[in-house]
């Protein structure tokens, strides 16, 4: 199975288990994400959503099961793992921009150091990406000088600069002031429209409805239910999901 044709899923998790000590965080997870698909992961705190994201680029290792990306099993370590990670973008809740580098340097570092792109070319591409996320005018500043929304858009540009096959988003807007949420979601909707494969942990149902192809509801380390956003939000089939939705909807 080394097929990489258009129909094979980009990511496939089969019977994946993960423990933190005694805590069983991922329980027999089976999940695949197709090319160009946008999957929103939703669920109560501690349910394992972040961990699910993090095992896909192996920021966390798994105890059993298999994960394939683009037809290949995830490499365990070394150069091969670094290569895999360069193909899977990640956007964190807390942005994690490199504090000692300018906005433009944040975006060009990966292309220059990982891909060996010449600096000038990387900077040109970096400026295009910053333009695309609407912060080209901030290119020479340092992350701490930007608002949260601007920082998160930089983080998205940094991920895009690697031309990833997929981007993982772990609660990209939950550390943001409310007035900045939309500017980040707009960028993400744009990416979804352009066909980027995305896995997004978020409770922003507006985003899920506008951009997601599928909603995955996760609780206690298990995928409890999944379906199209319209179905899931209006007619959740499990008690657990109904209960969860009623709680977040009233807020």
């Amino acid at each position: 199975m080394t097929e990489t044709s258009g129909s094979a899923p980009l990511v496939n998790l089969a019977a994946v288990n993960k423990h933190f000590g005694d805590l069983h965080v991922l329980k027999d997870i089976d999940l695949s994400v197709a090319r160009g698909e946008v999957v929103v992961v939703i669920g109560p705190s501690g349910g394992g959503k972040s961990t699910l994201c993090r095992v896909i680029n192996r920021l966390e290792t798994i105890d059993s099961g298999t994960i394939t990306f683009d037809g290949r099993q995830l490499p365990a370590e070394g150069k091969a793992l670094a290569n895999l990670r360069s193909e899977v973008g990640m956007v964190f809740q807390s942005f994690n921009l490199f504090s000692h580098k300018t906005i433009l340097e944040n975006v060009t570092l990966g292309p220059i150091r990982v891909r060996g792109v010449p600096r000038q070319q990387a900077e040109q591409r970096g400026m295009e990406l910053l333009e695309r996320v609407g912060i080209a005018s901030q290119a020479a500043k340092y992350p701490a000088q930007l608002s949260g929304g601007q920082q998160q858009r930089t983080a998205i540009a940094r991920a895009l600069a690697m031309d990833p096959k997929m981007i993982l988003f772990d609660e990209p807007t939950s550390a943001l002031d409310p007035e900045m949420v939309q500017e980040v979601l707009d960028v993400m909707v744009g990416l979804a429209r352009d066909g980027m494969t995305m896995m997004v942990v978020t409770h922003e149902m507006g985003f899920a409805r506008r951009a997601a192809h599928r909603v995955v509801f996760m609780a206690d380390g298990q995928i409890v239910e999944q379906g199209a956003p319209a179905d899931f939000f209006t007619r959740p089939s499990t008690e657990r999901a109904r209960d969860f939705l009623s709680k977040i909807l009233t807020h």
Partner: protein
Amino acid sequence: MEAVVEELPVILQAFWLTVKLTVVSGVISLVWGTVLAAMRVSPLPVLRGAGTVYVNILRNTPLTLIIVFCGLGLGTVMNVQFSADDLSINSFWLSTIGLSAYTAAFVCEVLRAGINTVPLGQAEAARSIGLTFPQTLRLIILPQAFRAVIAPFGSLLIALIKNTTVAAAIGVAEAALRMKNLFDAHGDAVIPIFLGFAAGFVVLTLPVGLLFGRLARRMAVTR
């Protein structure tokens, strides 16, 4: 007082040697200490273990013992030589080895504390764009760690300046040894000579503290 004026060339020469010992040992221990810190945070248990053992031994051995070991053990017994005929060159480099080996252990620990101030998310972001562990350390973690420990590095440098006096134990003609010689030559001027040398050390150390304090504020990483 005349004794100090009269012997000024000797005193200045002695302090020049102190400065040379400090600069050379400082540079070597900075490099070696950084390598040790990298070993101590590396994912390879062998490297981590070796780094830990080294640091704990060197940090807990009195400097005088280390310098004497370098002079006698390396120099006399194992016959490590840096110059065939000039003994002062030999003792200079042997004591530099001792000072560097010792100071590097402290550089390593200060730097490791600096690494701990860098949020984990920085390394995760670096790994997630495909940087390897050495790249992550070199490009992301260490640059931020260094900036966080500039002030403690200043303290280490001040300690190193003063520690160079231990090189007198194996006959390096730096300030402390020269001072003792001058005491013998000018028995009536012990206090002025002492004050002269003490002032010399203050002239060396005081600006270091001020400079590093200012540098630390200028270079601080804002998060």
